[in-house]
């Protein structure tokens, strides 16, 4: 072969490969996921809708805080046989277990890390809504109002778990996080956020530019979302012991807020919805009588304290054929609330709002407040087959509110633990060979 032929071959070889960006290929984009940068500027309506659903998905993860807080408040036994730490640490049977000082406390991420992920998602949604021109200013206000309302709900979770450790409120920039605020300051910020959200919703027109899942059917317009906003504001107000504001907020939450003695009225509210894959199952659905000891079980004191005729007992507690026995704890009942893996899980029901209203009135104790509080309590009692409660004693009425909250809100958000702490009654909770914590230590990642 001649020299020139050889060069020709080589030249052809190189010409062939240079033709297709061989020496300078394009940047490779993530082939599996859309990019964050792609929505932060000039997001389309479809992208905003995805972020809204994304916020609902992150919001739904709030169920991850329930088992631990409900164990602290002795609503349940965490009878999960796969790991002895559920009982050792959560019930506190292990002498060295201490949620208040252990920055890596077992299984506490759901009370901190998870809600802050929802808060992050809400921030990204708001930033994207601010930096796009495809929506009107009313539509933008709708997004901001929804995002702030959900964000406030989520802020309350770490605040309740961290309690007087305080929490960070300004968390928009990972490289420049805001300071830790005291419990009172953080709570005030959350209530301000709700008020801002309400202002946004009030200027959001008649409909949203996005669609919410079926679990939000009660709140799928700016006006009804404002009701949810006020319901959450009422919850925050009783935490702040701002009773007047709690009454006002509850009333402002009407028509969602409704003093009607019916199961439908009580169960009206916001729900997390579930489905078959690619959706997920309701994490609180358990086969009745399952032999796999991987479930929360009803604390025996709840069963012992039930009132005759209370329909909530049968609705919520299932008597197992064989008791669950684990690490010295015995429970006869498991959760009976959900019939299928796809059953929705409530994150805020009118029943709670009615009891918030009762508590706030009883605490405010002006004019006819006590009588109205008793009426509100009886709306709940009558719904579940109990006769009227009669009292003129402020303390007895408050006790009754707490008693009703214990059954009405069982395993819906760790309410019992928060209530007992609010009223300084943690020492009344049963020890079960362990200890009662008042808060969870600030996580290791924050130290």
């Amino acid at each position, binding site marked *: 072969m001649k020299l020139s032929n*050889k060069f020709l071959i080589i030249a052809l070889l190189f010409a062939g490969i240079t033709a297709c960006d061989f020496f300078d290929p394009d940047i*490779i984009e993530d082939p599996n*996921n859309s990019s964050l940068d792609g929505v932060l500027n000039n997001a389309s309506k479809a992208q905003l809708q995805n*972020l809204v*659903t994304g916020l609902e998905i992150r919001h739904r993860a709030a169920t991850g805080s329930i088992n631990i807080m409900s164990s602290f408040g002795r609503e349940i036994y965490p009878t999960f046989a796969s790991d002895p730490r559920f009982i050792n640490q959560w019930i506190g049977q292990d002498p060295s277990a201490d949620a208040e000082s252990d920055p890596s406390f077992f299984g506490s991420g759901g009370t901190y890390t998870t809600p802050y992920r929802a808060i992050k998602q809400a921030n990204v949604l708001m930033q994207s809504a601010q930096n796009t021109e495809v929506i009107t200013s009313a539509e933008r206000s709708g997004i901001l109002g929804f995002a702030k309302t959900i964000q406030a709900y989520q802020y309350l979770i770490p605040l309740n778990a961290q309690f007087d450790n305080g929490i960070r409120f300004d968390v928009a920039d990972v490289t420049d996080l805001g300071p830790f605020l005291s419990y009172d300051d953080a709570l005030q910020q959350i209530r301000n956020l709700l008020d801002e959200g309400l202002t946004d919703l009030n200027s959001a027109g008649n409909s949203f530019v996005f669609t919410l899942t079926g679990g939000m059917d009660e709140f799928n317009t700016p006006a009804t979302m404002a009701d949810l906003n006020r319901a959450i504001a009422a919850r925050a107000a009783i935490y702040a012991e701002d009773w007047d504001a709690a009454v006002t907020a509850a009333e402002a939450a009407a028509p969602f807020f409704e003093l009607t003695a019916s199961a439908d009225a009580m169960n009206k509210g916001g729900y997390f919805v579930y489905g078959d894959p690619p959706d997920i199952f309701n994490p609180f659905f358990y086969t009745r009588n*399952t032999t796999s000891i991987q479930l929360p079980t009803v604390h025996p004191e709840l069963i012992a304290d039930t009132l005759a005729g209370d329909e909530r007992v049968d609705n919520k507690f299932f008597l197992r054929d064989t008791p669950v026995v684990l690490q010295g704890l015995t429970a006869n009942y498991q959760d009976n609330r959900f019939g299928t893996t796809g059953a929705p899980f409530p994150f805020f029901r009118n029943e709670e709002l009615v009891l918030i209203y009762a508590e706030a009135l009883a605490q405010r104790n002006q004019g006819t407040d006590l009588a109205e509080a008793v009426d509100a309590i009886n709306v709940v009692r009558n719904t579940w087959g109990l006769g009227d409660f009669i009292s003129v004693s402020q303390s007895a009425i408050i006790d009754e509110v707490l008693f009703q909250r214990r059954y009405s809100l069982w395993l819906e958000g760790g309410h019992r633990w928060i209530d007992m702490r609010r009223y300084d009654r943690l020492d009344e909770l049963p020890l079960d060979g362990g200890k009662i914590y008042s808060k969870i230590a600030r996580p290791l990642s924050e130290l």
Partner: protein
Amino acid sequence: MKTKRYLTLIYTVLFGLLFAVQSSLAQYTVSGLITDAETGDALIGVTVFDQASGNGAATNLDGMYSVTLPSGTTTLRITSVGYLTQNIEVSGSNGETVTLDVQMKSDVANLDELVVTGLASSVKRSNLANSITKIDAEDLTERVSPQTLDGAFQGKIPGVSIRSQSGAPGGGISVQMRGVSTLGAGSSQPLYIIDGVYVNNDVITNGRFLTTGANSSQEDNSSNRLADINPDEIASIEVLKGPSAAAIYGQRANAGVVIITTKRGKSGETKVSFSQDVGFNSALKLLGVASWDEDKIRTIYGNGATGDSQVAAYNSAVSNGNIINYEDEVYGETGMISETNISISGGNEKTTFYLTGGFRGEDGIIKKTGFERNSARLNLDHRINSDIRVSSRSSYSFTDSQRGFTGNQNGTGGSIGYALSFIPTYAQLHANDNGEYPDNPYFSENPLSLINNATNDQTVQRFIQGIQLNADLIKNNTGVLSLKADGGLDYLTYNGLVHMPTFLQAQKSSANPGDVVHTAEDNINTNIQAVLSYATTVGTGDNELNLNTQLGFSRFDQQQNRQVVRGQGLVSGETAIANANIQSVITQTKLEVYDLSWFAQQEVNWDDKVIGTFGGRFDRSSLNADQEEYYFFPKASVAFNLTNFDFFNSDFVNQLKPRIAYGETGGLPNFGQTFSALIPGNQGGFLGTFVSTRDIDPNLQPERAQELEFGLDASVYDNRVSLEATYYIKTVEDLILDERVPTSSGISVIARNAANLENKGIELALNINPIRNQNLDWTSSILYWTNESEITELNIPAFVTGGFGASLGSYLLQEGFSPTTIIGNPAVSGPSLFTVYGNSQPDFEMSFSNEFRIYKNFDFSFLWHWKKGGDNINLSLFLTDLGGTSFDWNEESDDPSLTKGQDRLVNGVPSDYIEDASYLKLREVGLYYTVPVTSIDRLFGNAVNGIKVGASANNVLMFTDYRSYDPETSVFGTQAINSSVEVTPFPSSRQVVFHLKIDF
């Protein structure tokens, strides 16, 4: 490492023809006999060549040669593989016949062996400035019958720590070169290159963990894909252990490079070779299980109803003679091994070929486990003309592994060993006459049912193609300009099936009984490379400098698609997803990567006295945060052959070569680590995207290793004693770690360049040929290596990683500590955060191999491998203690009120379960008999050229105090640091194999 003289026979004849050029006018003849200096045997196929005239010849069957030379004086170069090259001056006048008998000295130290040092160049070992280990086929496959290629490396490469992760058939081996080179972001495994093709050595997981409740795919016990390669096709491997040698491979070489060359045909008569191996697997070690009696049952189950029923069960088992050692039953199977290889090779002076087909099948020591590999290869080499050569390397393989269910599980009992840990000897778990297994009252699954009814099947089809072109573009008096272009592809498709039928105990109690996971992955790697090199000589005589300059470009591309789908709630007996009540897509992902490189290298050789090389490589990769940035990786080395200097005058010392080398390599971030992603999710029929919990650092750099290597190679006494000593300092900078940011940001981790670490080590290789005569040739080799690692800088807070958390033993990442440090509860104040219990890195490793050739017909060899130190987290013992079944559970402890098993649980978690994993293993023994040619001729005439029979064994003996099946184990598979945790693994097996090989 030594030559196989008989193999070169045919080569000789053709070589002779090639050089049988026409005679010129004034010429004379040189002839003589060439023999082995030690044995006196005539040597066949030795080349005698005169560079000046281009004339040459090769010795015939009697060791005789004859070559015709132009009158005058010239230098004859006499070469033969495995012998030291000799240059002898001859002179003669026209018509004269000169007799020149030559005695060849064996190249015991392999000084003439060619070793790769550049992307288009190689040098003689005697001129090498790095410590590069080369292993030939003889040491890989001709003494034993290895399961996988990497398995055959064990004990043969100083500086390399090789750990078999379980005893499951089909491999699963981690190869760590010169200590830790990544903390998990980059590849912990070396880059494998077969005939120029960058091959995929991924551990492809199959989602077994989904069905067993184990924590992650790392616990799937999948093997690395080198298992697809038939070791019998391999001619040699070269191991570039550290950056100083591997710098020519740039950004993918932090964990070292293994260059694999497959066999090629030789011109001459077509040669057919058939080999058949038959053997068996059996458990290397069984531990035994604790016995039970009424007292022990009462201690564990109490005096209540449970205790009563257990005692009744025990008494009934005793009276019926049904006390059963389930360990023996489950792990006591004998697995058959069969391997067949057929190869046909040959060709002419223009074209040679090597065609081979192989089959290996083996059954494991657990019923229904096994491994099968079918492979075929065609290697072609063609010379277009005297200047251009092309070659093609094509291979196809199909492997099928059943690796069973071992290791970790949660809540499902989906691990045989885990379930066994809780089963007392009086349990009755056998199937009834209908084949139905009773529920296991002691755990969530009956392991006998799991073995017989569950499926874990993985198949891989793989095609590897390499093409190479070598062309001399310009040849003239001043030098040679040549082009070497090569490229190839490695395409594999993987299919995995894991199936738990509906009637299994754990499935029956699930809401949706029956669980199936299908995994499909296809991966294609392509690479192409072109190098221009210019070789020239300047100066003459003592001042002669050989220069070789290379310039090149290479590109690598990878594309991968992976789908994992799962079905739960199955139609009985069905495994197709459509038969499932719940059908879910677990994973559907795509991976796309490219690398680009430009490189240059200059080699300078001053008369074989001083040999220097320097070069560098500019690399860019789409895996980097900045995909367009080129990173520079330099290298330089120099070696001094003191024996070649005039001042050095010793017949005793054959080589004395101090050497020094420096190089840098890179480690790339994992795919996806540099993307800021929105993760999709579904809720209530809506599709959402949410912010990933992983954020990115836009300034992320690739990991960079720098290595300085010093060495001394010496050989004395006719090369019969040689020593290779190396000391290296390897630092790895910009190690990528996930920084755990405050989670109130909504972000959990950001990958950052957060640490530097240093490895220092010593490697010694002593090769001796103590006896070499006609009746006995004994070669012996002692290897020793040690490495120490330390994190020298950590820019993020110290943290604990791996294992199952500090309560059961974990690893510490902290400045001033080795990343292999094992810690555990209780926590302490101070830099270690927790109590330090050990270190998974061994103090040192040594191996001792010997080969004896007796009466030229018997070959006997053995290889001992000693690993001293290095700790494991032995959670198998923890589990059997919990179940009361540990082999020593009943024995007395220091505390008179507790047995050993109780004492460990009460007083020794985790300290008693972190233990020394030293071992001494007799890894290989082989004995072969080569039937003498005269006998073959008598029996078969000319039909058969050679017959070899023999027997060999792998993993023959193990001496260890370690309290489980094998100190070599890893429940998390291939890991940079989290690699010494044991959870009820597949026990190791001993393999005994009988061999027959016939050459036609």
